[in-house]
C-alpha cells in the first residue's frame, strides 16, 4: 500500500510550482489570445510565384487605412506558402471593405494569382462577450458541481469535498493553460473545448475516489483515522485510475499520430493539450484532492478539540 497522505507535502509543492510557473509564464510571455476572443482581423492569402511582402503590406494598409502586420506561414496540407495579414484594429472589417481589399490585391499582384484562403474577422465586443460567457458557463458549472457533491457525499462532509474537487479543476485548467502558454498555442475555441473536456474528465475521476471513501467510511465507520481511510481508498481505486488514463491517453496518442501523418494540424494542437490535461486530471484526483481533503478534515478535528478544551 502506498502512503499517499504521508507524501502530501511533495504533491503540494509540485502543484504549487506548476501553478506558479504557469502564472509567471503567462505574465511574461502572455497568453496568445485568438482574435475569436479579443477581436480583430486576420486574412490568409495563398499566392503563386514570388511576391514582395513589403509591397503587399503597403497595399493592404493603403486600402484598409490602418496599420497591419504580415507573416508568412506554410500550409502543411498543400505544401504552399501563405501570407497572413493581421490588422491592428480590433473592431472588425466590414464586408464591403473586405471585397475592396481582395479586389485591389488581386489587381495589383495579378501575376501571383492571389486567393483568399481564410478570413477571421471578429468584432471586439462580440469576442469579449463570448469570452465572458464562457467564463460564466465554467463558473456556473463549478457551482452546480459543488452543490451536487455536497448533497451526494454528505457522509464524508460533502461541501468540503465539493470545494476540494473544484480546486482540483482549477489546477487542471491551469495545467492546460500552461501548455497553451509555453507552446505558444493560440487560445481559441479549441482551448474552450479542451478546458471543458478536462472539466468533465477530472470531476469524474475525483468522484470515483470520493465514492470509494464514502463506501469505506460506511464499512469501517468513524473509528478509522481519516488519513488511513483515504490511503486505503486511493490504493483500492488506483488501478482503475491508471487503466482508464492509460487507455484514454493511448487512444488520444493514436489519434494524434494518425492525424499528424495526414497533416491535419487543428486536431494535433487540440489533442496534445488534452493529453496533458488528462494526466493532470488523474494526478490531481489521485494525489491532490484526497490529501487536501484529509488536511481539511484534520484541521477541523483539531479546531473542534480546541473549542471542546476551552469549554472545559
Amino acid at each position, binding site marked *: 500500500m502506498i502512503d499517499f497522505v504521508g507524501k502530501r507535502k511533495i504533491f503540494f509543492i509540485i502543484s504549487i510550482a506548476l501553478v506558479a510557473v504557469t502564472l509567471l509564464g503567462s505574465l511574461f510571455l502572455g497568453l496568445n489570445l485568438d482574435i475569436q476572443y479579443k477581436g480583430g482581423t486576420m486574412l490568409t492569402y495563398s499566392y503563386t510565384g514570388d511576391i514582395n511582402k513589403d509591397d503587399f503590406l503597403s497595399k493592404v494598409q493603403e486600402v484598409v487605412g490602418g496599420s497591419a502586420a504580415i507573416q508568412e506561414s506554410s500550409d502543411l496540407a498543400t505544401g504552399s506558402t501563405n501570407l497572413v495579414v493581421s490588422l491592428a484594429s480590433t473592431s472588425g472589417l466590414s464586408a464591403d471593405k473586405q471585397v475592396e481589399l481582395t479586389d485591389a490585391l488581386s489587381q495589383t499582384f495579378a501575376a501571383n494569382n492571389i486567393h483568399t484562403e481564410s478570413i477571421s474577422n471578429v468584432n471586439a465586443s462580440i469576442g469579449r462577450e463570448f469570452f465572458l460567457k464562457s467564463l460564466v458557463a465554467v463558473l456556473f458549472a463549478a457551482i452546480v458541481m459543488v452543490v451536487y457533491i455536497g448533497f451526494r457525499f454528505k457522509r464524508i462532509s460533502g461541501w468540503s469535498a465539493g470545494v476540494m474537487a473544484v480546486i482540483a479543476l482549477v489546477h487542471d485548467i491551469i495545467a492546460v493553460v500552461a501548455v497553451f502558454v509555453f507552446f505558444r498555442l493560440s487560445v481559441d475555441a479549441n482551448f474552450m473545448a479542451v478546458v471543458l473536456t478536462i472539466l468533465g474528465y477530472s470531476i469524474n475521476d475525483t468522484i470515483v475516489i470520493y465514492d470509494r471513501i464514502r463506501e469505506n467510511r460506511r464499512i469501517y465507520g468513524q473509528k478509522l483515522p481519516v488519513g488511513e481511510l483515504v490511503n486505503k481508498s486511493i490504493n483500492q*481505486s488506483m488501478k482503475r485510475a491508471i487503466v482508464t488514463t492509460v487507455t484514454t491517453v493511448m*487512444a488520444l496518442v493514436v489519434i494524434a499520430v494518425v492525424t499528424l501523418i495526414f497533416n491535419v494540424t487543428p486536431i494535433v494542437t487540440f489533442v496534445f493539450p488534452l493529453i496533458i490535461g488528462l494526466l493532470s486530471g488523474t494526478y490531481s484526483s489521485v494525489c491532490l484532492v484526497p490529501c487536501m481533503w484529509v488536511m481539511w478534515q484534520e484541521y477541523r478535528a483539531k479546531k473542534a478539540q480546541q473549542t471542546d478544551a476551552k469549554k472545559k
Partner: protein
Amino acid sequence: MKKVGKPVFFVVFVLILLLTLTAFLGVSTTFGDIPTTWIKGAQDIRWGIDVRGGVDATFSPPDGYDATDEEMAAAEQIIKVRMVSQNITDYEIYTDYDKDRIIVRFPWKEDETDFNPEDAIAELGATARLTFREGYETDASGLPSGVTADTIILEGKDVEEAAPAMTNTNEIVVSLKLTSEGAEKFAEATTRLSSQSPKGIISIWMDDVMISYPRVNDAILNGEASISGGFDAAGAKELADKINAGALPFALQTTNFSTISPTLGVGARDAMVLAGFIAFIAICVLMIILYRLPGIVACIALMGQAAGTIAAITGYLPSISSFTLTLPGIAGIILSIGVGVDANVITYERIREELRLGRGIDAAIDAGYKRAFTAIFDGNITVVFVAVILMGAFGPPASIFAMMLKPVFGIFGSSTTGAIYSFGYTLLVGIILNFLMGVTASRLMLKSLSKFKPLRKAWLYGGEKK
C-alpha cells in the same frame, strides 16, 4: 437484476451489431434512378464549418439603430431568400431579437471551386430591392423578362406595412398598406389589370427572386390590398416579412465574419475516421488483455455507444434532421467514450476484487455491477450537468436548455459558436448511451455469458488461475 438467460447475450449482441452496421454504413436503395435513404450512415454526418470550411457571419443593423422585432424578422427573410438564390440550402440562421443580431453559418458545398465567400457575405447584407411588377414573364434562368422586366408598378419604399391578417370568412391573407404615392400607382395598375380578361397578374420580387404572383381581382383605390391564396399562418407571416424587407430602412452590416477554405476537407475527414478506428481497436486490445471475457463485452458495449452517438448526430432516420459535428463535438465523443471505458473498468476491477475475496462468479458479477454503479452514476451525472450548461449557454436561443438557463446567460447575446453547442450535444448523448450500453447492455451480456459452462472459470473474469 433477476435471471438472465443464455440467449440474452446473442440478442443484445445482434442488436448492437445491427445498430453499428446501419449507423455507420446507412441503408439506401436505388429504385430506377431515384436513390432513397432509409437510414442515414456516417457519410451523412453534417460537418461543422471548422472541419469542412465555410462561412460564419453575424449581421446587425448599422450602429445606433434600434431595430424592431418586425424589422429583424424581415431582415432574416432577406438573408434566407438570398441564401436560396445563391443555391445554398444547407445553412443555419439564428436571429437574436434582444441584441439585434442575425447569425448565419453555411458550409462549402461539395466540389465547390469558384465560389467567392467575400462577395457572398457582402451580398447577403445588402439592402433588399423589392418590386411589384406587371405579369410574371420570366426567362430561362428565372429572371423577369418582357413586360415583367419593363413595368415596375411599386417599389419597396411604396409599401408602408405588410402583415398577416384574417378575413371575415376566416381566410388567412397578407394585408398590404401602401403609402399615398404607392396607393396612386397601385390604383392605376389594378384598375387596368382587373379589367383585362383573364384578369392580370402582379408579381412580387425580392432582388431577382419572385416571391409571389397574385391575380388582380379588383381595382384597389385606397392603398389597402390583401393577398389571398390559401396561406397558413406561417406562410402568411413569411410573405409579409419578405415584403416588409423591401421597406427596411437600413442595410445589414457585418464586422464579424469568418471564412475557412475547404483545404482541410475530405482528406482530414478520412484521416479522422481512420484515427478513430485505430484508436478503437487499440482500446479493445487493451481491454481484452486486461479483463479477458469482460473485456470482450466492454468492446461490444463501446461499439454500441460509438454507433449510438453517430446515429444521434446523423439523426438515423431520414426524417430527423442531422446535427452539425464540429471539432469540439469530436472532443465530446472522445470524452464520452473515455467515460464509457471508465465505467467498464470500474466495474471489472470491482468484479475482480470480489473474486479475490473468494466469491463465486455469479455473486462477484452482481456485486461488481452493484458496487460500481454509485461511482459511475455520480461521475456521469456531473458530466451531464456540464453538457446541459454548455448546450444552454451556446445553443440556439429557442432550445429547451437555453430557455431553462436564461436567468444565468440572459445578459449575453446568442453566441456565434455553434462549435461548443456541438460538444455539449455529443457529450450528453454519449453519457446517456453509456448508461444504456456500458451499464445495462454490458451487464446483460456478461451475466448471460456466465451461464455457459465453458465460460464458468474465475480466471476469465480476472480471478486467480487455479
